[in-house]
């Protein structure tokens, strides 16, 4: 299995981009071979700041995803593409709205692709891109790009036993 972590930059659809500016965020994932292809559990987080001249309150966007990808390996390079599903949590930094409404969770679907370069000592470098549709009443489309390092390790016996 492979652990990956990296920095995340993202762009949003033009309607949303007029309202909010996503800052640089971070992401991590745990990927392992599945029966067919690879399966990964991923987490991303970034802060979205309201844009001038009349900025709306900022919010933190946290995305949890289950990803499936089909890999193709050529020498030290591996590219993989697939689909993902999950949820995005919006945490509003706004004390004027009811506490129960300051956090919303919304479903998302999307496509993703990753390119990795195998490095010595089980390390790897990767660049990953996604296209995500967040199923709000007015949908939001995000296109994050993540770059970082990965580390591969044999799954411990207890984890293999759990996954079987």
């Amino acid at each position: 299995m492979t652990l990956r972590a990296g920095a995340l930059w993202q762009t949003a659809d033009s309607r949303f981009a007029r309202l909010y500016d996503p800052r640089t965020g971070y992401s991590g994932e745990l990927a392992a071979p599945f029966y067919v292809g690879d399966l990964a559990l991923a987490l991303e987080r970034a802060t979205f700041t309201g844009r001038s001249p009349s900025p709306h309150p900022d919010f933190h966007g946290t995305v949890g995803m289950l990803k499936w990808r089909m890999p193709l390996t050529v020498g030290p390079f591996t590219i993989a593409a697939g689909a993902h599903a999950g949820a995005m949590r919006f945490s509003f930094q706004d004390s004027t709205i009811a506490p129960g409404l300051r956090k919303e969770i919304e479903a998302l679907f999307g496509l993703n692709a990753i390119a990795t370069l195998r490095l010595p000592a089980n390390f790897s470098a990767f660049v990953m891109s996604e296209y995500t549709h967040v199923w709000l009443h007015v949908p939001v489309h995000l296109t994050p790009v993540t770059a970082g390092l990965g580390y591969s390790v044999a799954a411990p016996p207890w984890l293999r036993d759990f996954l079987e």
Partner: protein
Amino acid sequence: MTRHRHWRTASPIAGIVALAVLAGPVASVGAQTVVIRRADIERAGWNRVTELLDGAVGWARASVDGFTYAASPDHLPAAGESGPSMPEWIVVVDGQRVQTEVFGVHLLELLPISVGQIDSVVLTRGPVIYGGAPAARGVMSIFSRRQRPGIGGEITYQHGDETGDPGPYRYTDLSSPNVEKIGPFAHGDVGWRGGAWDVDAGVHVASLNVTDTLISSRFPGTTFSHLRQDVLSVTPTLRAGVDAFGGRHEMLASYGDQRGLLFIPTRRAEQSLRTTSAYVGVGGSSRIADSTTLSYEGSVTTLTAGDLLSPLGFTVGHTRRHFGGTVSAARAFGRATLTAGAIGDGWTLASDAIAQSVSSSGGGPFVRALLPIGSAVTVDARATLIFDGPRAGAPDASIEASFRLDSLTSFAVRGSRVQAHPNMDGSWIDAFVLDYDRPARAPALSAVGVTLGRRFLSHARATIDLRGEAVADWTGLGRATAPQFETRPDSVPHAGNLIGAHAHIETLGESVWQGSIDYDRVATFDLDSRSFGAEIASAPTDEFRAQLSASPVRDFRLSGIVDLAGGTSWPAFGATAGSPAMVPPLRRVDASMEKWLWRRRLRVELLYRNLLNEPDRSHPFGAQWNMRWHVSGSLVL
């Protein structure tokens, strides 16, 4: 069935009865059946008993809040279009009749069984005679899984959310109301089985927000903000069984508590209620001689509807108690079996509005003859004579002849006539509490039908069922009326005929691909009035359901389900006379992914409902659901 780890197996009684139903039309006297198996429950991701009605194709489910449902198995007018004293379908858990109906809706979350304990459900459309009990509308019969030897248990937790939140657009002109969280739905039980004894204790919990704007906007001013925003039910259960005296004997007990808004269909408005249901029942059978078996079933239910503090005027508070039971003896004469017995039910109503409690009762003898003729024909005849309160004895009867045409093909023809017995079935209580007069005559339903079943392609089976039903003295709320909170509409007696067809195809056995297709259609003719036809239009004319699942590798399953239903029209819920309220057609696609982990001790499921994000709604005053997603985990101990 599934390949999943069964820590329990179906009880012998449940297995025998379920197999009898599954084997063909022999047990489906006077009716058409839908069978929901454990695999269906898992791939659909149902974690509340109420959700099982999603699989009851042709039962015309309707719900305002998505939590509590009404259903019309025969497509007679839905609750609220029918009067409050009309007979309802009955619910049976492991052979014990359990009272679930209040004001035309069924509180299935208060049943003494959770989804995790269910092996299968057989939904039978009426009119039928079930275990000696006349059931004019139909039967939902639930069979439990039996615990494995030793200690075992299961815990399941599911949470979900509806899409369509405003998100950051809440600050803009594109803002929209926040939509529902769904759940949690959870159930757990732990039990022990040793020797002849077994015992199991459990609890099931369900919660659902009811803040959909189609609900909240019906309340004047700021009333809704002062009401409980969710419906919550908690039901502890206890089950004990013993194999003794040549048979099995079971005791079921539960105390269900449901709080929140409850839509009263006849009132066309909600009440803020705390409803509790205390149930204790026993049932079983003993072989008392080589060819004679004695069976019994009895229960006591106390159902209380009390006020939750709210600004709504509270007018429906009451306590209804039911006690009832059956006893019968079956004796084999060669290959034939003759059963004779008696049934009795009683009701007591206590309410703040009346000085003294009011009681009713009814019952009488019943007989059943199961007569094989040759090797290919079986005749099943049943009859009851019910003395309903002060009324003279009224007979109900059903007969079915089933033919095994060859090793793959069966054919059955049947007829039945059952009338409502208000003193016995307690249907007068809703009318009494809601201040309606009791109808002068109880409704009577007569049905004929044929079923052709054939197995093909070695692991598939197709069934086609045609039926006709005549109804007399059905009370509808016959005029299009107005707004919520208006005074009650008039009751109008109706008569008419319905014809219907149901086609069912399913895969059998275990294979990588499994699935089923159901299609149900109903039409009317010779109705006594146009208003009766308008009321019947509250049930969809067509329903279609197809499910397909694939297990390409061990411990992993992908499933897809398509549900289609025609739109409905509700004259009693229209804003003005002549303009009924409309419910759009249903076009729903669900998908789920299941993975078993930890050597089949843990099952996780990701489930999407209404992937097309089409209007998903079953009642004109009810919530409309967007696409929603659920995550659940089940841990088998």
